């Protein structure tokens, strides 16, 4: 039976291959469409509907950082970078996503999302303009729609080719099934491209437009290259072999820094340069504060320390900033604030990757504290964290979160009586806090343990 199929499949196979080639070439032709000639098709309107749903989902799931002042500031920069004329099916929105990964992306409906993790890396308004200028280009030039059309063509081709392989028996088999299985379970290619970067050509186009928009608004275009340099440095050990995300992909970043510098040299400013580092930092204060806990949550304690240090340096007399520095140092656990040279070797990275593939973050962090280096780092971090919490409390003795943080630190460091005292004080200061029950439970557990050990020692005597 199978042999019969093979016998008749020659023409079919050829026809399918021609269809596939045609489908691919049509995809390429569509990708060459310019923003001026762009006409919305049914497929584009379907995508528009989807991304509007994505917007609502981000909001519903608590992923959007809703601080009116921050949003207004980013909107102000954003409006300078967008064209004056309205674009069909585009409603510009500039939003902050609660995500520690340094990234930004644009949805085709005009929603620009900048992660808190990226905003905290930037140093001035010109760098924010570079990011916004880049992202709005993806919307203006309809990159999302073009990528979607191209993706659909490719998917059709893949499906037809794998079916042809199945009929002919030569292409498909296990390899074909595995390939289509993997491709079939991927998230939609267009969303991956939207969030993690388009093709090099489209990204380059976005960089070039962003640079021109920066120059037009007197933001020095060279700040775009400075942004990439900042992101390239980072604070964490880069574990991914191929980093995801447009803004942390190192080999591509080097290339981008080179051509961005070249283009920037050719773009003179019409007026005095606008950089505004202090204004930017002031406007971003809420984002910096909010991001510290997100960095800690995702195991990026070194970045948390860097962000909290920046906050402390901005205003050393602020109790909340001192508290956040304490939180960041406590979260470092068995790590040093800056990676040790032996951590960034390939073999060390491989070992860490292997551990993380088998452990939860909590287990991994606990394991770090069992090594001699980890124990030494923990002792140093406890000291710095304690200083920071005490500083926060000297600035504001009613800072309940600092009381709680110090109690957690003492608890983790095995200083039960100090921890218990701290928990009780927290409950007095903040009896209706969201985590009041959690702290009460901890205090009760410590009390029970202390009573049990007292009974144990009496019996022993």
């Amino acid at each position, binding site marked *: 039976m199978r042999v019969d199929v093979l016998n008749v499949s020659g023409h079919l196979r050829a026809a399918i291959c021609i269809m596939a080639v045609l489908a691919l070439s049509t995809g390429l032709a569509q990708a060459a469409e310019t923003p001026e000639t762009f006409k919305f098709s049914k497929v584009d309107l379907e995508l528009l509907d*989807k991304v509007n*749903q*994505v917007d609502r*989902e981000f909001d*519903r*799931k*608590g*992923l959007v950082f*809703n601080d009116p002042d921050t949003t207004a500031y980013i909107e102000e920069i954003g409006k300078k970078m967008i064209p004056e004329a309205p674009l069909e099916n585009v409603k510009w929105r500039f939003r902050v996503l*609660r995500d520690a990964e340094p990234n930004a992306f644009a949805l085709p409906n005009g929603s620009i999302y900048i992660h808190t993790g990226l905003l905290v890396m930037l140093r001035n308004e010109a760098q924010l303009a570079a990011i916004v200028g880049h992202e709005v280009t993806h919307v203006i030039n309809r990159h999302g729609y073009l990528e*979607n059309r191209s*993706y*659909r063509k490719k*998917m*059709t081709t893949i*499906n*037809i080719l*794998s*079916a042809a*392989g*199945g*009929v002919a028996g030569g292409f*498909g*088999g*296990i390899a*074909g*099934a595995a390939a*289509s*299985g993997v*491709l*079939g*379970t*991927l*998230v*939609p*290619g267009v*969303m991956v491209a939207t969030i993690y970067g388009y093709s090099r050509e489209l990204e380059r186009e976005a960089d070039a437009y962003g640079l021109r928009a920066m120059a037009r608004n007197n933001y020095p275009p060279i700040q775009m290259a400075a942004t990439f340099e900042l992101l390239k440095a980072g604070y964490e050990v880069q574990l991914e072999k191929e980093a995801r995300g447009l803004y942390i992909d190192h080999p591509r970043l080097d290339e981008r820094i080179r051509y961005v510098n070249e283009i920037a040299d050719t773009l003179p400013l019409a007026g005095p340069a606008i950089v505004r580092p202090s204004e930017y930092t002031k406007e971003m204060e809420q984002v910096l504060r909010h991001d510290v*806990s*997100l960095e800690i*949550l*995702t195991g990026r304690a070194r970045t948390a320390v860097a962000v909290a240090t920046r906050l402390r340096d901005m205003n050393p007399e602020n109790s909340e900033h001192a508290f956040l520095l304490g939180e960041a140092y406590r979260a470092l656990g068995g790590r040093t604030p800056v990676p040790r040279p032996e951590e960034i070797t390939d073999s060390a990275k491989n070992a860490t990757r292997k551990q993380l593939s*088998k*452990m*939860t*973050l*909590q*287990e991994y962090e606990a394991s770090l504290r069992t090594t001699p280096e980890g124990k030494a780092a923990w002792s140093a971090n406890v000291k710095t964290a304690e200083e920071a919490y005490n500083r926060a409390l000297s600035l504001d003795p009613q800072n309940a979160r600092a009381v709680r943080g110090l109690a957690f630190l003492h608890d983790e460091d095995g200083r039960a009586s100090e921890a218990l005292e701290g928990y009780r004080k927290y409950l007095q200061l903040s009896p209706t806090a*969201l*985590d009041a*029950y*959690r702290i*009460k*439970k*901890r205090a009760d557990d410590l009390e029970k343990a202390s009573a049990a050990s007292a009974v144990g020692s009496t019996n022993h005597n």
Partner: protein
Amino acid sequence: MPRKPITAILVLFLATTAWAQFEHPDLKSGKAAVKNAVIVPPTVRIMKSGVKSNEELIEESRQIENALPPLIADVLQERQCTVNDKVLTADALEKDAELKYAVADLQKRFDEVFPQMQRKPKDIRKGRFTMGDEVAKLNPGGSADALVFVRGFGSVSTGGKLFLSAMAGAAAYSGTVYHIVVVDARNGAVLYYGIAFQGGNPAKNPAGSRKSIEKSFKNFPGKVKS
């Protein structure tokens, strides 16, 4: 390579893993009891797998997310476990940004622990996994014994996709796998993990979802009310 034996192995594998339950020793021994629970808003991703594209059915996924909590509450009720459905309602989350962020952060924490749970589900029987006592943030007044986290991953294949996949000898299916994880609301220990498979498009078959959830709680303590 012949495809039939591979398909048979795949079917056998699915059949053995589709309905699996793993209990924490304390839950099995009765040391930990779950009489009151709060359901954390479920996360469901249903993908439409077609010839032209694979795309997430966002609206359908959301519908299922909204439909699951009452079904789970109903199943738990049969096992003498009351569900507090007033704590994490959409309204409550909309009104309280701090609570909304706390839920989002706990979901993130769950998604960090979850891959290890999937990799070694039997370790739940050793009491290995915990989400930390931060979960107690979602347990106002300590009234709940447990928090229920739900993840659903599904695929709905179009007719064209099924046809082309059949020609390629590849497997294409429509169905959803639900992962239901019960976590101690006081200390974050993972008490129970149930997996259930539902064939077809779950958005069109809520009764099927109810049945699957029921199966995923098969080994959950509590006598089923008749």
